[in-house]
């Protein structure tokens, strides 16, 4: 039997135009990272914090260019001068100081050359506080970034190996984690500081040695989930080596966990540096860090409160901004975590 041929022109596409319109993809398809960026930039608080932190980081990076003086340049005759902002007569920034109940121009008293002014005043050795704060912030940030890097370098491989291998290896590695994490961080940091010579490297090591545990735990838990995924199975079937699977498949998929955790490690490191310097076993003199500046300021705060204000404010701003940015990033990476 022959099937009758129906000529093509008997067929007609209905609603040709409308259908196409419906099927069209209106917005460009966003990759995961683009999506994250979009969500992050929609969060006003996070954007403000990101801007603030960027400014602070830029100032610290270009500290030698921006700071008016070197951090350790002393002018013995110009010690303990209050803040003065040019010739502007703003209370608190006019170079006047309360001496025995009277407001006195401190700059005239020490016969400072005309035109000399320190925006945030000077300390007991006549060092410019603004410059010291800029360099101090720089040092604190360097400590935080280095500590976080070391933290990542230990935590990520440890977590991946533990999660990937499983079984006895995992069991053994987790016992170590348990013991390390049951010792209070602060104690380990302080013990490390006593043993190592005080200085930048020791602080970084001391902080990193305790902080990697949290990272390792998170990475391990995630690796456990990821290794059951089909794409990992596919990679294994194709004969990829474990290291390649880790770098090509696991780490990219762990990136959100890593970024979020990093944002919480940084303020932690800044806090520990400031804490150690404050109790006198951190950054050694004459170098400035936010902790040492605050400690110096606290000693003199009765008569020279401005020496304490500036480092306290900068330290608080950095802590608040990193914490809020961390929250923002977490919400951006994982919208379900927020309500």
């Amino acid at each position, binding site marked *: 039997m022959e099937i009758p041929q129906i000529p093509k022109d008997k067929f007609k596409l209905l609603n040709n135009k409308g259908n196409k319109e419906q099927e069209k993809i209106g917005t460009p398809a966003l990759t995961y990272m683009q999506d994250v960026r979009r969500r992050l930039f929609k969060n006003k608080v996070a954007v403000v914090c990101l801007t603030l932190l960027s400014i602070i980081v830029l100032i610290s990076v270009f500290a030698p260019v921006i700071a008016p003086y070197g951090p350790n340049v002393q002018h013995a005759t110009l010690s303990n001068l209050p803040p003065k902002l040019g010739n502007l007569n703003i209370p608190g920034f006019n170079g006047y100081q309360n001496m025995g109940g009277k407001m006195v121009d401190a700059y005239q008293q020490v016969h400072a050359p005309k035109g000399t002014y320190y925006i945030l005043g000077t300390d007991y050795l006549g060092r410019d506080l603004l410059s010291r704060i800029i360099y101090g912030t720089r040092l604190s940030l360097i400590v935080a970034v280095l500590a976080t890097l070391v933290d990542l370098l230990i935590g990520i491989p440890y977590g991946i190996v533990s999660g990937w291998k499983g079984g006895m290896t995992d069991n053994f590695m987790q016992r170590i984690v348990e*013991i390390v994490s049951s010792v209070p961080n*602060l104690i380990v940091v302080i*013990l490390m500081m006593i043993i190592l010579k005080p200085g930048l490297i020791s602080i970084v090591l001391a902080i990193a040695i305790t902080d990697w545990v949290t990272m390792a735990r998170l990475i391990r838990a995630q690796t456990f989930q990821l290794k059951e995924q089909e794409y990992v199975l596919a990679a294994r079937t194709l004969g990829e080596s474990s290291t390649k699977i880790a770098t090509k498949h696991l780490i990219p998929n762990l990136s959100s966990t890593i970024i979020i955790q990093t944002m919480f490690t940084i303020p932690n490191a800044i806090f520990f540096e*400031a804490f150690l310097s404050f109790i006198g076993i951190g950054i050694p003199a004459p170098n400035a860090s936010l902790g040492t500046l605050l400690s110096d300021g606290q000693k003199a705060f009765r008569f020279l409160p401005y020496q304490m204000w500036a480092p306290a404010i900068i*330290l608080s701003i950095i802590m*608040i901004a990193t914490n809020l940015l961390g929250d923002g990033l977490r919400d951006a990476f994982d919208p379900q975590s927020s309500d």
Partner: protein
Amino acid sequence: MAKYILKRILYLFLTLFIIATITFFLMKMLPGTPFSNQNRLSPDQLAIVKAQYGLDQPVFIQYIRYIGGLFQGNLGTSFQFNNEPVTQLIGQRLAPSMQIGAQAMILGTILGILLGAIAAIRKNSWVDTLATFISILGISIPSFVLAVLLQFYLAYKWHIYPVALWDNFQSSVLPTIALAALPLGNVARFMRTEMVDVLSSDYIELAKSKGNSEWQVVVKHALRNSLIPIVTIIGPMAVSTMTGSMVVENIFSIPGIGEQFVKSITTNDYPTIMGLTIFYSFLLILVFLIVDILYVLIDPRIRLGNGGND
């Protein structure tokens, strides 16, 4: 349950033993001498002093002695503070630290619960924003910054509280506030998340539909159920309070163990550092253990492993 607790206590001692061993050998590795006037001592005198502290023995014997002493509750004698036994030093100084720590944790927790609950009930209103802001400040601003600022304004400028003194309740107010900020922030944050979760659950809807007032629903149903997970953050809270107390005690000159710890670090008083390290670790591991046990007791949904018939 009993098996679990026993296992955890065993772990506690194992961890303490490892910590004690590590601190002991670390302290032995340190360069320098514990005696500040060693150069002025004749070899004979030095030998006598060393024998008095047991430092003439081989390191291994010293170690065995130290661990043996630990089992009898003996933490050695201080090199610096009038040769006082370390246990006695800790004993004398425990009360102020405990008082401030407890006050701060209680104050922080209560205020934090209130703040978090109010924020959750008035979710996305200005009250919520304000509460979130306060809790972020509490979490972010280090306790020593807060302590310094409080000392400057409330004590030095306005004379409401003593600048640095330790005698009555008045003198404990500022350090307590400085230490309470962090727990407050943490608890408020945690509480808000929990409470928002609970408020959107079915049993709250049911309670509302039965005609209960909002107050009744919140207090009787929501608050109670949100409180359970707060127990889990007591451990970390104790850690941060302890960390904070070291500097805060220093700033306000409170004769507590935190201040003692910082002092022994700056004077290289190794037996005291070791003793306090072990003591602090013991305290914290104990807190974590108690919290874990409490959690199992409070929340019937968690019954360690074997399906609730333990």
